[in-house]
């Protein structure tokens, strides 16, 4: 807690500080405007001069398999060009946008794009590799007009030692996605999703008993690809636990809550047989199975619903979202763009202008709900939620106006208002370690949960110590 509170303080101080510097800059800009563009292009706080000729490469362009998103991306670049005709954006499509191993390799090789996508948990690693540019001086309410409404907690994750390195593009809080149709078919009430691990187990068994003959399973869990560790962390947050100590130097996941959650998953898999026999190894397996109507529920972020409908044949009306079991705290994660250290000031400015246009401007880019509606991209999912104040109000109003998804299906998730909690430091490393615990429970009937947890604890402590 103290760490988070400290971070929040830093964030507040920073926001104040940025406000001051930007005020200083803008006053000096006014003088420069008469003198010519030379000085204004050299001062970091001003928006990009549309006359500046600059080329930036940006990754995470939607792949050809995601047609409407890809089309919107290209349309947005065209629209962006109207304001900034001299900015050339070289988009690179990658799917998934980040693979942790390749991300490391890219950082080591400095082969990332000028403006590069990452998970918000990656800041530490990016800084260790010496690859992120400090954009503190570039970000203010002139370059990012909605800055004051971005949740300081979200920005704090992208800061280190008071310096800002990235801009958020989306964030999520974990919950339980479930198939309402399967619930109905199994005789369960789709408006009363399970809220504890015991209820999950009971419902999962009902689904298995009623529908198992059709190849439908009650629950799905991951055991590899960092997905297992991410889910276990989410489950522990749900129980109000933490996975590392407050100062971030020691593992803190080995406790009765972890044992009991893992025991429940183990029993679902081996006693009730209400989970598929294969432990999910790759990101996408749960979505594919849920999309094909083969599983009743699994832990997820809301954007999975969109993915399942668009890519894997699911139907919006069938999918519901409930709060994370336990409901104490919910893991908040998200994505952002960093700026490569070697970028020129104009490249950073152009990058900020693009990110601002595509991801942080209401009624534009990702928030152009009217267009999303025509293009068949769902509107009304409870994500992202990094805006506060006036921006949040506008966003909510827009969303309601153009909603295409059955919003009432996510009511219990939205109403629960579970307090969010950011991912642990060195998250991806911890997830790898915790994967082994999950895979042990999922793949070994005689798994020794105590031993799995204590081995993982030793390993995690070493990794955290080695990282100091």
């Amino acid at each position, binding site marked *: 807690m103290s760490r988070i509170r400290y971070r929040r303080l830093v964030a507040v101080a920073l926001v104040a500080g940025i406000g001051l510097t930007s005020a200083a800059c803008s006053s000096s800009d006014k003088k420069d405007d008469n003198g010519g563009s030379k000085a204004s292009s050299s001062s970091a706080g001003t928006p990009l001069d549309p006359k500046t000729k600059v080329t930036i490469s940006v990754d995470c362009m939607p792949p050809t398999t995601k047609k409407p998103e890809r089309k919107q991306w290209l349309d947005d670049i065209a629209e962006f060009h109207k304001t900034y005709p001299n900015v050339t954006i070289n988009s690179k*499509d990658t799917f998934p946008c980040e693979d942790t191993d390749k991300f490391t*390799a890219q950082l080591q*090789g*400095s082969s990332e794009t000028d403006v590069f996508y990452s998970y918000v948990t990656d800041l530490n690693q990016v800084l260790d590799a010496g690859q992120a540019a400090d954009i503190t001086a570039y970000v203010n309410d002139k370059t990012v007009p909605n800055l004051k409404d971005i949740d300081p907690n979200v920005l704090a994750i992208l800061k280190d030692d008071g310096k800002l390195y990235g801009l958020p593009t989306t964030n999520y809080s974990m919950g339980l996605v479930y198939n309402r149709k399967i619930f109905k078919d199994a005789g369960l009430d789709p408006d009363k999703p399970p809220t504890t691990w015991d209820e999950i187990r009971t419902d999962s068994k009902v689904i298995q008993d009623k529908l198992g003959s059709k190849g439908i399973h009650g629950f799905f869990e991951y055991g590899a690809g960092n997905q297992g560790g991410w889910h276990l962390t989410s489950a522990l947050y749900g129980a109000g636990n933490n996975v590392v100590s407050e100062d971030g130097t020691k593992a803190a996941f080995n406790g009765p809550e972890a044992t009991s959650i893992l025991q429940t998953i183990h029993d679902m898999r081996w006693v009730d047989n209400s989970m598929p026999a294969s432990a999910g190894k790759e990101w996408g397996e749960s979505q594919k199975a849920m999309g*094909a109507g083969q599983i009743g529920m699994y832990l997820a972020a809301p954007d999975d619903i969109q993915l399942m409908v668009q890519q894997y044949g699911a139907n919006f009306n069938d999918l519901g979202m409930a709060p994370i079991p336990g409901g104490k705290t919910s893991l908040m994660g998200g994505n952002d763009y960093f700026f490569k250290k070697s970028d020129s000031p104009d490249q950073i400015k152009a990058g900020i202008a693009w990110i601002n246009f595509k991801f942080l401007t209401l009624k534009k880019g990702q928030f152009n709900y009217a267009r999303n509606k025509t293009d068949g991209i769902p509107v009304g999912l409870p994500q992202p939620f990094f805006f506060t104040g006036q921006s949040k109000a506008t966003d909510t109003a827009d969303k309601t106006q153009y909603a295409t998804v059955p919003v009432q299906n996510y009511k219990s998730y939205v109403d629960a208002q579970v307090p969010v909690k950011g991912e642990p430091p060195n998250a991806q490393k911890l997830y790898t370690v915790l994967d082994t615990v999950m895979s042990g429970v999922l793949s070994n009937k005689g798994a020794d949960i105590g031993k799995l947890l204590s081995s993982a604890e030793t390993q995690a402590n070493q990794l955290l110590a080695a990282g100091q």
Partner: protein
Amino acid sequence: MAEFTPANRTLISSATLARPRGKVIYWTVLSVVLVVFTLVFVGPLYWMATSGFKSVHEVLHNPPTLVPKDPQPSNYKTAWTQLKLAKLLWNTFYYAFGALAFQLVFDVAAAYALSKLRPVLGNIVLGGMLATLMIPSAVLIIPQYMTVLDLPLLHVNLINHPWAIWLPTVANGFNIFLLKRFFDSIPNDLMAAAAIDGAGPMRTLLSIVLPMSRPILGVVSIFAVVNVWKDFLWPMLVEPDPSKQPINIGINSLSQGVPQNVLIAALAISALPTLLIFLLFQRNIMSGLTAGSLKG
């Protein structure tokens, strides 16, 4: 069919096989082998080709079906366009034949120098090269990777460049070993005769040594191409750009984003070029491989 005489007979003599009991056993074994081997080695390939035609639901259906119920050739088209297989295959060939060219030029020249020109300290150089045989490439993957990121002295970053695949393949102790052994067996009279005619080392290499070395060059070439074709970890690390990846890496990284049936169709397409090349040239490839490996 080869003739079986006592001199080239095998474990079981022709006489034993000629007996009635021997005949029965032989034909039974032969038919069992034919059936089992066909199932084991062609069966999976059949399953790959046909599963590529199945629908999303059928491909994940239990029990699996022997023949696609409602064949969807469009899966192959989707795989070809969405996974950009043409690009991936082209990259693979580009890397493989580039590596081949570099190895033929540098390794042949080096082995020739070590075998015939024998410079001062040549044996130490040879020893250093052969010592790398003891150290498999995967062990050095981390420092090698760091080297490619920032080549010492030159300070060049080879990531995402074909050099990162081509140049390290030259550092192949096995090639040097094979080639030098072969060159050693070329009589020095021939070299001396060429020298009398006033031929320099380069001309001797081109007009005398290389024409005699066709078999070993064939073997080295096959190994060179196959090694790049089969390599996985190294190209995954040094070619992170999706548009520059060889087929193994490209398909694997895109495998998460496409349905299973499209993935299997992509696998089938990826297997096709080499299978075709093999079936067309199988006689040359197989005789080349066995001849070379025995000499080595």
